[in-house]
């Protein structure tokens, strides 16, 4: 099967900055594909390359197997939901949604009927006559979605579409987007800096850092077996032991260990034989409801965290107390020592 989107050694360089640096990947038709990374990691540039707002300096971008490097945005069968929604302020909601068919020459009654159907799909059937400025953030988001879907694109690009919404609405929209994608069977490419969003919605996630893909895997794989220190930290904020600390702890290579796999022992407790321990001092205890996150400054210099249930026996220990962190040896995930993980926190 031909990939819906394929990047072959794509690079995009702005002056001295390699925004995208030799990136290759393929997105399968009908897939929910997430591009995850911090700002400036190259994920949005990749999205712009797919939409056609930017062209690669090297390599090829293929849509449905065809090189689209010379194809302008208005001739690509791809639509975008913009971060700021980019709704036309001088048009009504219905006119906004009908804009795609309008510029493609669909007759007025026909395109308005289609726009009404799209508004029904995103549960905004009654709002067609209003201006974007009269809608709430969540409603605008839905209008942007309806407008992007009306052309029946093969690929829908979503650029941090939920970034401006509050938490509750964001969670509702995540579920809605996912079910919409299943229903329509369209390939979704979803750019976000929120790892929770990427993990909960996507079939596969590409983690970007400094213009490169650090790891491309299914969410579970990404979480349980991060390939690099950067991925371990960025996806679920795991603790990372660099080469020096790993050696000190008797491990052959750098490794990551999740906060929920770490237990906190009193300084006087004996170290269990089947577990690794590291001594340090409590810096802070953050209450998160069911669990508390303990920040511990290791004697080796790293700031690690442990996620403990609120009922934990060590609860109430003063900040500054000496403790030991302990974890089962097999919970450590070995990492390939590569780029992106240079900062030793």
């Amino acid at each position, binding site marked *: 099967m031909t990939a819906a989107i394929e990047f072959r050694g794509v690079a995009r360089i702005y002056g001295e900055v390699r925004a995208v640096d030799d990136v290759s990947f393929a997105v399968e038709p009908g897939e929910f594909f997430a591009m995850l990374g911090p700002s400036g990691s190259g994920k949005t540039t990749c999205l712009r390359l797919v939409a056609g*707002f930017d062209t690669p300096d090297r390599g090829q971008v293929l849509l449905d197997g065809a090189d689209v490097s010379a194809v302008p*945005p208005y001739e690509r069968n791809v639509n975008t939901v*913009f971060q700021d929604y980019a709704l036309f302020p001088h048009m009504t909601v219905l006119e906004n949604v009908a804009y*795609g068919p309008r*510029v493609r020459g669909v007759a007025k009654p026909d395109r308005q009927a289609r726009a009404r159907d799209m508004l029904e799909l995103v549960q905004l059937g009654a709002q067609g006559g209003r201006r974007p400025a009269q809608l709430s953030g969540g409603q605008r988001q839905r209008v942007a979605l309806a407008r992007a879907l009306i052309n029946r694109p093969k690929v829908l690009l979503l650029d941090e579409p939920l970034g401006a919404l509050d938490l509750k609405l964001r969670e509702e929209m995540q579920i809605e987007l996912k079910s919409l994608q299943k229903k329509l069977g369209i390939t979704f490419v979803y750019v976000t800096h929120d790892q929770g969003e990427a993990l909960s919605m996507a079939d596969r996630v590409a983690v970007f850092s400094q213009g490169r893909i650090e790891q491309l895997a299914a969410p579970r794989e990404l979480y349980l077996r991060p390939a690099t220190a950067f991925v371990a930290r960025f996806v679920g904020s795991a603790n990372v032991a660099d080469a020096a600390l790993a050696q000190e702890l008797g491990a052959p290579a750098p490794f990551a260990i999740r906060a929920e796999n770490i237990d906190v022992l009193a300084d006087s407790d004996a170290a269990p034989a089947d577990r690794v321990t590291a001594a340090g001092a409590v810096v802070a205890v953050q209450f998160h409801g069911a669990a508390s996150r303990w920040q511990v400054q290791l004697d080796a210099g790293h700031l690690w965290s442990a996620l403990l249930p609120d009922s934990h026996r060590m609860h109430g220990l003063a900040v500054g107390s000496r403790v030991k962190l302990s974890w089962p040896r097999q919970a450590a995930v070995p990492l390939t020592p590569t780029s992106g993980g240079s900062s030793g926190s």
Partner: protein
Amino acid sequence: MRAASTFFWRRPYWYLALLLVPPLLWFGTVYLGSLLALLAQSFYRIDDFTAQIVREPTLATYAQLVTQPANVDIVLRTLGMAIAVTLACAVIALPIATYMARYASGRMKALFYVGVMLPMWTSYLVKVYAWRLLLAREGIIAWCLGKLGLGGVLDALLATPGVGGPSLSSSYIGMFLVFVYMWLPFMILPMAAALERVPGSLLQASADLGATPAQTFRNVVLPLAVPGIAAGSVFTFSLTLGDYIIPSVVGAPGYFIGMMVYVQQGTAGNIPLAAAFSVVPILLIFAYLSIARRFGAFDAL
């Protein structure tokens, strides 16, 4: 000082009053007051035998304005010129403003803004007289066209009935060129300001949905630039309607509204007719604004 600050901080209305009263007094008395005085004058008339102003309310002066064909000609001539100048300014300004607002950045942008405003730092009279020399029969423009072998084109242009004349500097074409040159910055700046406010993502969204650049321009850029075009056109339109220097220095001998006001209140001493003539541009601009409003020029504000 501190006590005064606290006083105003606790009483925002006093603070507002302090800010607004002086300019409102100025605006109210000097500006609106003189405008009303002018309006009042236009309802007086001049006694034809004594040349004295008769201070009794009458519509005789307005009757004279609208019934004498010469006066109607002056109004129509000025209005036609104002419309032509406004259209030309809009057409020339649009690409320049688009470049300034959407494409230029950094030094280039600063250079363009300074370049557009620079002519306004020069004396208005100097520019008008400079243009008269440029447009003269033996002037540099005629000379350049002659050297390029386009002298015939110029002659054909000047032979056009109604707008032509013996030379550019003594034809309506020349006057039109000078007007366009003079008021162009007043069109470019508000237009560029309106275009700057259009987010780039709107243009991308339009292209993304399948619109060609021409469609994007027509459906998105132009409607959002219309308030700026409307603001600029009010400048070019009203400045042309009221100007009396350009028509008296450059162009054909026909009178314009501004010249008529100047002549009537000066040499002729007919203050009521001068006042009636100066009410005409005000009415025309009101008419223009209400037409623009009807076409939705201010909907995006």
